[in-house]
């Protein structure tokens, strides 16, 4: 009896959270699969007609926004990686006893509400705000110069928002490097650059992998940066899904787009994992 209880224990302990995740994360994915294959309208209702045609239709209609989302996602991820790698390196190897305080500094933007973070960039980058306004006043920029509603503003906003997500996993990976390994490289006459590129960077690869993955997925699906900092020419796939779903109640199209986004990202993730061979993602999130 006791033995049976012990055997059942892990399942009983897991049951509540599994039930919640199955009901409110997995089942909904099937719900939108069903919704995407329905036809009809929000007034007369929708019927399941197995309309697979919806997928090629939305791909051809929204391919621009798809490509744009992936482009913005790639660019903002690369920027965040290039900006934050040296910072994570510095905290891990030069942080000394104040490491946790530097990490907290990196995390501070988290305590500002996400929408407000984006909104402050609207204030900073606005045509008459203190950056552009000052540059225009001293004649460094023409009066017509603007950043808001350009792709740069959206990509910049996405990259800014990604900085902490990128820094943390890389820092965790760098932290695990044994100083003895660096000494060994030095003893083998590796110069500082070789030590960085042939020892430190490869050893921190799992952190880079995790950071890139988290940031890329988050940014590809984002629509807040595009709608607060962007303009008509910067619409991302997230904007389309949100508008079609919440404002137009066009459930089939929005569901199909969401599934396509999820599917593309899953395939991308799989290929990315095969290419880089990291499978210990959970250690870094």
């Amino acid at each position, binding site marked *: 009896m006791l033995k049976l209880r012990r055997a059942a224990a892990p399942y009983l302990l897991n049951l509540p959270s599994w039930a919640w995740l199955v009901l*409110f994360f997995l089942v*909904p*994915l099937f719900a939108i699969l069903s919704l995407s294959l329905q036809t009809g309208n929000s007034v007369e209702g929708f019927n399941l007609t197995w309309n697979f045609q919806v997928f090629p239709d939305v791909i051809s209609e929204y391919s621009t926004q798809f490509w744009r989302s992936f482009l913005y996602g790639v660019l903002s991820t690369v920027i965040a990686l290039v900006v934050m790698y040296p910072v994570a390196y510095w905290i891990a190897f030069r942080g000394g006893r104040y490491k946790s305080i530097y990490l907290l*500094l990196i995390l501070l933007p988290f305590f*500002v509400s996400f929408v*407000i973070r984006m909104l*402050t960039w609207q204030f900073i980058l606005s045509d008459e705000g203190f950056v552009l306004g000052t540059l225009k006043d001293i004649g460094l920029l023409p009066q017509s110069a603007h950043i808001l509603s350009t792709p740069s503003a959206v990509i910049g906003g996405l990259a800014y928002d990604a900085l902490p997500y990128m820094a943390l996993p890389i820092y965790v990976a760098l932290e695990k490097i044994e100083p003895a390994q660096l000494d060994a490289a030095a003893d083998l006459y590796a110069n500082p650059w070789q030590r960085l590129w042939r020892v430190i960077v490869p050893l921190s690869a799992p952190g880079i992998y995790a950071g890139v993955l988290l940031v890329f997925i988050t940014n590809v*699906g984002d629509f807040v940066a595009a709608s607060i900092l962007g303009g008509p020419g910067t619409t991302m796939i997230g904007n389309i899904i949100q508008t079609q779903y919440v404002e137009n109640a066009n459930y089939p199209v929005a569901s199909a787009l969401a599934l396509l986004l999820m599917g593309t990202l899953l395939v991308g*993730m799989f290929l990315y994992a095969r290419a880089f061979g990291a499978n210990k993602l959970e250690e870094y999130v």
Partner: protein
Amino acid sequence: MEAATIEPAVESARRRRRSRPPGERGRWALTAYVIAVFLYTLVPIVVMIVYAFNKAPNGRLTFAWNGFTLDAYRNLFAIADLTNALVTSLEVAALSTLIAVVLGTPAALAMTRYRFHGRGVADAVILSDIAAPSVVVGASLLGLYVTFGVPRGFTTILIAHVAFNVAFVIVVLRARLTGLDQSIEEAAQDLYANPWVAFWKVTVPLIMPGIFSAALLAFALSIDDYIITSFVAGQTLTFPLWVYGAVKVGIPPQVFAMGTLIFVAGAITAGAGVIAQRTRSVPGS
């Protein structure tokens, strides 16, 4: 004889290499760069804090500076809808954190202490829940609600927030529990504490710091979430939803004042956690 002459030469070459650090100038450049990034990440926070003191003609902030005032703090709760939205956000955050901890803690315990079937699947589901783009999570949950005709409101927001928080709670807690010494609990049982007493008197105090950081993260994620909430909220407004809605018509300074207060509360709590950890991790020094 030969070895005796070579060795000092190697030794001195090694010493020379070590005593001449990899570019003193490069080191300073890196530090300067890191300070610049720290400052850059703080810019939006400073803008939020400062603009809360900007005079707002017609109750809406302008990008230009109109003079210093404390009005936003004096009339912090003057906008009833905004106050209600903030209260809703706090309620959802508190409740979803509580539920996620209650659901997630047993799962984290099971995952660190038992071997069981389906573990790999559970890991994959938890990771995809964390990694899935918010727009897909939100859209699919709305798909579920639409399919079953569930009216959207407070409860549907709460369900969504628990669904993403529970995965984060499990991951954070599991990381903390892995390092925990189980022999203390076994000692308690050896001393004839019954399992319940051992659990409440030994295990719970041991895992409390982990639960604290998991809860802090869950609370922060919940109060911050815009994208998922925007799908499942119906007519109910949370703080981020209200702010987003106000972007088009102009932001009242109260938004930045409330944002500042949330920021200060979050930063102080996290800072206290860091300090508590630092003092605990260096006993007797």
